[in-house]
């Protein structure tokens, strides 16, 4: 008898659960899609939709770079290359090369955290696609630059550095 009961229970359960599942998928039909029609039909410019503190492609403000090379040392995958040379007459310590290989970068954020002035920071830019590999290595120093010297009296505070406005607590 139990086999017969199981037979009809199977039919009943299958019918009811399929009916229930269909009602769920039908109710999905009437809900608002969550698709963001990137890039051409977004509700607002895509850069405004990216939250604060997003770790995008690295950018450097060479005017406040102290050339301390903390970022270069802390990078786990050797993405950053900084060259400091004595240039000119009299020889002066100058920042002559600052390159970032975006193709190799894994956007971990360790460099921007170790930067004392916030010169290297994550921009919100994320559209790094390029048809040329060379475009992915970015250089930030054209002419040799005198490294920035932070004022002795005040230490750079959290609220002042660009990194901090980028959502980075110290």
């Amino acid at each position, binding site marked *: 008898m139990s086999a017969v009961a199981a037979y009809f229970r199977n039919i009943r359960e299958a019918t009811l659960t*399929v009916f229930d599942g269909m009602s769920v998928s039908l109710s999905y039909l009437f809900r608002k899609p969550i698709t963001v029609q990137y890039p051409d039909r977004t509700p607002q410019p895509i850069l405004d939709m990216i*939250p604060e503190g997003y770790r995008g492609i690295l950018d450097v403000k060479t005017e406040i770079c102290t050339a301390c090379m903390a970022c270069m040392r802390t990078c786990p995958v050797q993405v950053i290359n900084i060259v400091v040379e004595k240039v000119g007459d009299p020889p002066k310590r100058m920042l002559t090369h600052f390159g970032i290989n975006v193709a190799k970068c894994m*956007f971990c*954020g360790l460099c921007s955290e170790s930067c004392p002035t916030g010169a290297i920071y994550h921009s919100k830019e994320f559209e790094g696609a390029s048809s040329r590999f060379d475009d992915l290595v970015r250089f930030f120093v054209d002419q040799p630059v005198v490294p920035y010297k932070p004022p002795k009296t005040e230490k750079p505070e959290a609220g002042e550095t660009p990194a901090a406005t980028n959502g980075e*607590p110290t």
Partner: protein
Amino acid sequence: MPEELTINGPDNMLLNMGPQHPSTHGVIRFVLETDGEVVAKATPVVGYLHRGVEKIATELTYSQFMPISDRLDYVASMCGNLAWCEAVERMAGIEVPRRAQFLRVIAAELNRISSHLVAVGSFCNDVGGVTPLVVALREREAINDILELLSGARLTYNYMRLGGVSRDMSDKCRQDTAAFLDHFPPALDEFNRLITYNKIFIKRLADIAVVTQEEAKAYGLNGPNLRGSGIRFDLRRNDPYSVYPELDFEIPVGEGFAGQVGDCYDRYMVRINEMYESVKIVRQCLEMMPDGELTSKVARVLKIKAGERYTRTESARGEMGIYIVSKGDKTPYRVRVRTSSYSALSIFEKLSPGLMIADLVAVIGSFDIVAPEIDR
């Protein structure tokens, strides 16, 4: 001819499943020996995603390895972060501020939910239902948004630091998390009505690939796969770390929801129930989280005195154990990572005889195998 490629039966055929197969969840290869649809033997072949993470670890300082620990298991990066943090901090004796502890637990539990969503979603996709996958990914998207606000990235978060976390939780992030916690349980109920209680789904999974308690222990299964066999073992309870002892949550185990204890459906249900528990944990953490420091003082280049230690944490897939040997340098001498997908893979040769190809796909899904975690 390698041993794995020989055929035993006279009518059997050799079938290569993977490395590029939609249901192997990454680049894993199964060499199947089948008699028509019935599998006589399934041999997993691993190594297609080997990246040498353990070797990389010996070249980097302890803090530099943090972003690499994301990549151990990229579906649950926070758990990898947490495992590495716990391992190094316990070895170096670093105290972590309480607020940071709570933030870590929130992040890890949210990530556990998102990882389980991927697991159950792709599992449903393997069994043939496409909509549940997308529904699960929609919920995961909300978690991704929250973790993006918290850490700045959507997949490989690199949120935790030795001695704390990198950022504080903003008000918006907190509100979004609370909103998600309100929205998620009913949405998961609805997901259950859509697929979990479906008779076809149950018929496909019940009594398939039953792993008994003894087998589960013998093959070293852990995490949800172990609990699916009815063993109440969770490192968050049995070897507690961080603030888990203070939190009130259940450890769901397989109870034979539709068939025998330890079948595919039980492993699936354990994951579904764990998501409800994780919601509870995150809720409690949001309430209990004190104000305070985010990180304790840790040397920028940490040196750990010579010694070795094995630390294990409960990742979304089970035990993630990290074994560090230090010789007192700024880099570890040797790092070994124990992941649960690898041990789950070992039971396939035992389970597969007699299954059909469709069952094998479901079994791979039910063990929630993630390829990068196997090969590292």
